[in-house]
């Protein structure tokens, strides 16, 4: 019983391979088309997730900069430091005196000439804070409290940037999902059409087989194998193309990040991802084949 099942499926699988070999050019082209369709959303996904990963590495710790009014004296700064330490969400306070800030700025070559020409220090005293809670609500609350302090001129938080990043990531994710859904449909249609053409060349065989006792399942089976096989191959093509793309982009990014002193690396696909891409390809191909054959069997109405 099991043996018969295996041999039935083995034969169907063999026939699928034969069909593929019978028209190699057509098989290669449709496999490539499907492979590219799978690769597109994959490539975008990988691009976006790498960008988000890179960006979030740049500022894992949100910093809060508090600038005092330019007129604020050293004494005001001392007062403010005490008040800052009293705020619940502040974990750490670092004072940046205006002189230090100026010296720092002068170190930047391009600014030196400009600043040397000034006889007064245009920079205010400043503090850099590390917040305890870094969620949006706590930070917003903290911003309000900071602005309410006397002598405080401005509060700059880089969580604005984190927020934008997050919004971008959500948007990118939706875009990828949408594109993925559209292209998944395309894969189903492309496979369906390939199978439809195959069916047309095998109409007689299908009709006769049905008349002498082949079930719909039997007729469908080799086509399903073909669809799944082609989809899996296309998934393999997509994986290979992605690897090539990542390798190529990796070279570029590496050159770029070295100049920024970062050791950021692009991520290759891992085994689980590769398996699921090939699996999804196979499933979509199978689905396209299933729909195509079912549609045909219904229209042919051979009882």
């Amino acid at each position: 019983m099991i043996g018969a099942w295996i041999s039935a499926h083995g034969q169907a699988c063999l026939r699928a391979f034969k069909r593929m070999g019978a028209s190699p050019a057509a098989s290669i082209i449709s496999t490539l088309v499907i492979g590219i369709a799978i690769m597109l959303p994959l490539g975008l996904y990988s691009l976006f997730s790498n960008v988000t990963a890179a960006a979030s590495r740049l500022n894992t710790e949100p910093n809060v900069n508090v600038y005092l009014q330019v007129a604020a004296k050293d004494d005001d700064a001392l007062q403010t430091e005490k008040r800052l330490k009293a705020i619940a969400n502040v974990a750490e306070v670092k004072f940046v005196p205006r002189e230090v800030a100026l010296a720092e700025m002068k170190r930047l070559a391009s600014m030196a000439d400009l600043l040397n020409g000034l006889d007064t220090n245009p920079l205010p005293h400043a503090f850099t804070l590390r917040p305890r809670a870094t969620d949006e609500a706590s930070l917003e609350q903290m911003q309000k409290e900071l602005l309410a302090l006397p002598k405080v001129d401005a509060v700059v938080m880089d969580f604005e940037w984190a927020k934008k990043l997050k919004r971008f990531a959500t948007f990118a994710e939706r875009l990828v999902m949408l594109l993925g859904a559209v292209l998944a449909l395309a894969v189903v249609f492309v496979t369906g059409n390939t199978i439809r053409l195959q069916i047309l060349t095998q109409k007689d065989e299908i009709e006769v087989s049905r008349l002498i006792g082949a079930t719909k399942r039997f007729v469908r089976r080799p086509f399903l194998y073909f669809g799944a096989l082609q989809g899996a191959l296309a998934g393999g093509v997509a994986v290979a193309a992605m690897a090539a793309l990542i390798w190529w982009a990796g070279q570029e990014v590496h050159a770029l990040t070295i100049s920024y002193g970062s050791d950021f690396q692009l991520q290759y696909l891992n085994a689980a991802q590769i398996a699921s891409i090939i699996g999804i390809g196979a499933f979509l191909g199978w689905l396209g084949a299933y729909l195509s054959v079912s549609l045909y069997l219904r229209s042919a109405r051979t009882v």
Partner: protein
Amino acid sequence: MITFSNTVKRYPNGFEALKGVTLSIAKGEMVAITGHSGAGKSTLLKLAAGIEAASKGSVLVNNQNLAEIKETGLGVLRRNLGLVFQDHKLLFDRNAFENVALPLSIAQFPRADIGKRVRAALDKVGLLDREKAHPITLSGGEQQRLCIARAIVNRPAILIADEPTGHLDQSYGATILDLFKSFNQVGVTVLLSTHDELNLARLKCRRIHLEMGRVAT
């Protein structure tokens, strides 16, 4: 083995090809359906093979009501029938051997058995030396015999043949009918349709005559 009771077949265009047929064919019997062109012979055979469904009344094969069995059941039934079609329905992209092997691969016979059985069937119809030939290169009579080989290759208990002598001359038709007679003599139930009055007279089997969709008495 095969029972029609008050069976009506109305085609989708509204034409009634069978207008209430009642008949019964016993196990091991050989029955010839005769009648003019358009009398409903092919329709009757298609109903017996479950290729068309009855509009009213019932068709029983092996005590199974064909209206009640599902797709897979119908598959099982068909694999146990031998069918010879009026228009042969041979596959022209395969050779004789592969055509005859088709029912066996559908029934998932082991590969080793397939060769033996196919050659035995081709031998019975005298086509053993043409196993590599493509149907297009065979004469009408040879195509007919090839079709018969395909019908008997799975050793069915029932053979249903629609005008197996239709395209053949008198003497060749006699050879074919004798072939069916020999299957019948080893216990196969045979149901065939024919125009061939002369040969039938010689064959001495039961006849059912159809006239405009009814059994004539």
